[in-house]
């Protein structure tokens, strides 16, 4: 099941770290042609690969396709993978490339039309309306960001990927990713501020 918070994801990461030897054994078995071992690898990394694909594509069916193609591509090249290395960053990068490629071939951005998940637990109808405004503005602001800024920011801030992991996905250095995240945060704060001002005038 997809983990909901970055804390849970990070906890999962440490668990994966403890299971590095187990993962290495799985990889060696996959390299020997054992399909069950491959299923174990898939289940171990499926949620995070799905996160990567979904952050780029914002479409469930497309993300599932990208996930499948990414794992199959990894299987195709597993023979050249060094079993002592962590499998995750490798397959995340494959997923990122696959998703970006699908997005380019799709030729349009869907973030503009992403339905927001406005599931407020607040009882106040007025607050719900305000939240809806805020979320809509945020989504619009996100849609305006360059793709790498947006995806880097979301993967790091919302999905719990480390800067280094995001950097490896894009094949850039960590400093570049930090700059992308900084820029994204700055622009979104500006957008948030304008929403606050509007909300203060309209609802306050």
């Amino acid at each position: 099941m997809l983990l909901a918070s970055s804390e849970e994801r990070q906890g999962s990461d440490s668990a994966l770290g403890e299971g590095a030897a187990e993962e290495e054994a799985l990889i060696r078995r996959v390299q020997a042609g054992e399909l069950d071992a491959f299923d174990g690898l898939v289940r171990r990394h499926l949620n995070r690969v799905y996160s990567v694909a979904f952050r780029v594509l914002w479409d469930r069916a497309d993300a599932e396709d990208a996930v499948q193609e990414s794992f199959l591509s990894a299987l195709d090249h597993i023979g050249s993978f060094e079993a002592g290395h962590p499998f995750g960053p490798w397959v995340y990068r494959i997923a990122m490339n696959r998703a970006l490629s699908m997005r380019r071939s799709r030729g349009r951005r869907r973030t503009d039309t992403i339905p927001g998940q406005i599931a407020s637990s607040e009882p106040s109808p007025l607050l719900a309306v305000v939240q809806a405004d805020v979320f809509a503005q945020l989504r619009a602001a996100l849609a305006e960001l360059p793709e790498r800024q947006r995806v880097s920011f979301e993967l790091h801030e919302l999905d719990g990927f480390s800067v280094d992991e995001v950097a490896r996905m894009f094949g850039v250095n960590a400093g570049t990713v930090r700059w992308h995240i900084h820029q994204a945060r700055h622009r979104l704060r500006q957008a948030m501020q304008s929403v606050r001002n509007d909300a203060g005038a309209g609802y306050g």
Partner: protein
Amino acid sequence: MGNDSLNRWTLTAALRHSRSIPVLSQAEFDGIAERIATAAAHRLARRNRTRDLMEGLARWTPWAFRVAIAAGIVGAVLLTRPESDGAPEDTGADSTATAAFFDAVAGSAARDQVVAAVVGPLDGSWALDEETSP
């Protein structure tokens, strides 16, 4: 009221609320994993078939080379052999061997007599020349 609530939110919290990835149910998770496993099984089977084929080729290639070389030799021999019209071949080798035999056994006079006896009836002028020669 709304403004106060907004102030409590951090940017990340607001984004997390509005931009969280749809949670996969256990059934969806299993469905994706099984789909991948099925596709992987097909791919592995195809890869194994390809590997078997390549191994078979590698195993049989030396023999195939030997057979091809042998066939090439036989073919070359057959193709370079002159066509036979049924007549005995008059080769220089045969004449030389015959001359050597007579030279060794009976000398050139005996050779001439034998040749005259055999060829003479067919070529009288040659025999006449022999008889009239000094």
